[in-house]
């Protein structure tokens, strides 16, 4: 028990140090007791010159934190490691078997010139002496020693100061995929709206890496910003801005900052959602009297109306097959989720449990929809299995909204209220892992998880 307490304190301190420089910090609020132990050995650093300049970030630490943030892994404390190898020939397989870890990550960062590095990292499975045969590692690229048969990942990459963190997230993705068989989503970004009521431009659309680092501002305004959403290629954001006094939809190219106003019809313009192939955008316009779903062909700007009902129809989300959309409608009296085919036809009701279901999003794997579900007056994140129709409430927080699913469908990021502050939160698809992401300044809301970025 005492030992566990000590571990928790060390973990807490580790997280504190790790979050010190992030604009949006991440605190794990509920871990999984079935998280698998892994070892990430601190990487050896070799300097090019006599004057030893440390690399900009701790490559191994970024990998360890990413794995921990997935909720599926529990990195072993450095002090508990039986040895600190840096290459395959250093490995004592039996020592790692005794520790009982699913994988061991180790490596070397070599400075080749000021600000340039060669990073080598491996992953081994201590229990599988045929791992290398099941991996994509080419034979002949590793030394012929017994330990090499345990290799799952063997990489060498050239990086610089600017893409150092990103390279570590990619490494974490490779390791995560080797261990779970599921693609990692650490080398991704989150877009969100930050509100600082004391600033001259209180409303900011920002983008940060999935761990909250490298925040950049995309757009700032004196008026509210809503509903950011990524283009499927990850190059653009669509969002709703009130800069002209009412809600209009803009598309902005992230790299160049170039903006295009695409919907400024009478009434409100809201809830943009890119089609999976990126050629169309679903949106909600009230130009014909009340909120209806439309699909805009982005090349011609031509609109096709999808719904015809005097009720509120809003919050479209594309089925990943691109053939239908789910949306919120209160046509039955209270908001529930419905589905409509792009080819036309009647809307079909999708949710039946509870009096209030809204803001549904398809998981990219098409197996689940997640939504805001009201239960006893509180608004929780819930997931509904497409095949069985079973609905599971995933959170205990009470003001959840603006759900967005990671591209590997493993995690949902959303906005909620923590005490008196509006914060971002994340929950795993099974509800067993939770993390909180408060901002350093002001409130954060409307998160949108990017697609895979290559």
């Amino acid at each position, binding site marked *: 028990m005492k030992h566990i307490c000590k571990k928790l304190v060390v973990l807490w301190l580790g997280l504190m140090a790790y979050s010190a420089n992030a604009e949006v910090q991440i605190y794990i609020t509920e871990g999984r007791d079935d998280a698998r132990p892994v070892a990430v050995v601190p990487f050896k650093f070799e300097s090019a010159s006599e004057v030893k300049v440390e690399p900009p970030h701790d490559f191994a630490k970024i990998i360890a934190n990413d794995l921990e943030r997935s909720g599926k892994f529990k990195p072993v404390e450095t002090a508990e490691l039986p040895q600190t190898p840096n290459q395959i020939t250093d490995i004592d397989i039996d020592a790692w078997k005794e520790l009982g870890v699913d994988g061991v990550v180790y490596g070397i960062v070599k400075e080749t010139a000021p600000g340039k590095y060669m990073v080598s990292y491996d992953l081994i499975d201590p229990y599988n002496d045929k791992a290398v045969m099941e991996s994509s590692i080419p034979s002949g690229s590793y030394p012929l020693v017994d330990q090499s048969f345990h290799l799952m990942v063997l990489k060498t990459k050239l990086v610089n100061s600017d893409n150092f963190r990103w390279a570590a997230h990619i490494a974490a993705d490779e390791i995560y995929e080797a261990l779970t068989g599921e693609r990692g989503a650490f080398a991704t970004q989150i877009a969100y709206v930050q509100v600082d009521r004391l600033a001259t431009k209180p409303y900011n659309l920002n983008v940060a890496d999935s761990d909250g680092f490298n925040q950049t501002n995309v757009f700032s305004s004196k008026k509210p910003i809503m509903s950011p959403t990524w283009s499927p290629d990850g190059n653009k954001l669509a969002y709703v801005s009130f800069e002209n006094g009412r809600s209009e939809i803009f598309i902005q190219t992230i790299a160049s900052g170039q903006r295009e106003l695409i919907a400024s019809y009478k009434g409100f313009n809201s*809830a943009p959602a890119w089609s999976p192939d990126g050629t169309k955008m679903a949106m909600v316009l*009230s130009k014909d009297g009340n909120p209806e779903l439309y699909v805009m062909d982005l090349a011609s700007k031509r609109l096709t109306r999808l719904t015809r009902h005097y009720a509120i129809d809003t919050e479209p989300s594309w089925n990943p097959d691109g053939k239908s959309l789910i949306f919120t409608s209160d046509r039955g009296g209270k908001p529930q989720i419905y589905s409509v085919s792009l080819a036309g036809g009647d809307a079909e009701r999708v949710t039946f449990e509870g009096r209030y279901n809204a803001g549904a999003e398809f998981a990219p794997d098409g197996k689940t929809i997640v939504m805001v579900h009201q239960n006893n007056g509180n*608004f929780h994140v819930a997931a509904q299995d497409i095949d069985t129709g079973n609905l599971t409430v995933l959170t205990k927080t009470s003001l959840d*909204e603006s759900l967005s699913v990671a591209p590997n469908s493993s995690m949902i990021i959303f906005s909620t209220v923590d005490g*008196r502050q509006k914060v971002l939160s994340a929950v795993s698809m099974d509800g067993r892992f939770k993390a909180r992401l408060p901002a350093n300044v002001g409130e954060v809301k409307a998160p949108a998880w990017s697609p895979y970025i290559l």
Partner: protein
Amino acid sequence: MKRSVQLLLALFAALALAACSTTEPADDTTDTTVQQDDGSDAEAEALARQRAAEEAERQRIAALLENTTIYFDFDSDAIRSGDMELLEVHAKHIQATGKKVILEGHADERGTPEYNLALGERRAKSVAQLMRTYGVSGSQIEVISFGEESPANPGHTEQAWQENRRVEIKYQ
């Protein structure tokens, strides 16, 4: 701040008017007792009472026009019966003056932002509809929804939510 200054000015104007209406009839009475009979005295008193009543009504309407926000129940666009008179007074004022108004619809933070944007519009349209039944032309009314994006009270309590579920009448 601006609002409380307006209230003070309105209160000051009302007090000034009240002071006039009490002194004037008193002067009239002293004048008329000498030259005129009892009948016209009673008539003057009735006239004064009518004037006072009219003034009171003007003040009541002026006070109602100061109030430009009405509130709603959760996920509802139904106008509360207690707000009918207020909206009638605004409607008649808009109709009489030919002024233009923006009806700004708002929602509390519960539920989803995009649904709340639609709900805010529905609330503002519900007010616009009632004003049209009182004779206001559709061209004098513009409806804009801010959903939950522009709270009157940024708190996360029942009290804050009630303050945020609102339509604001903004004279242009």
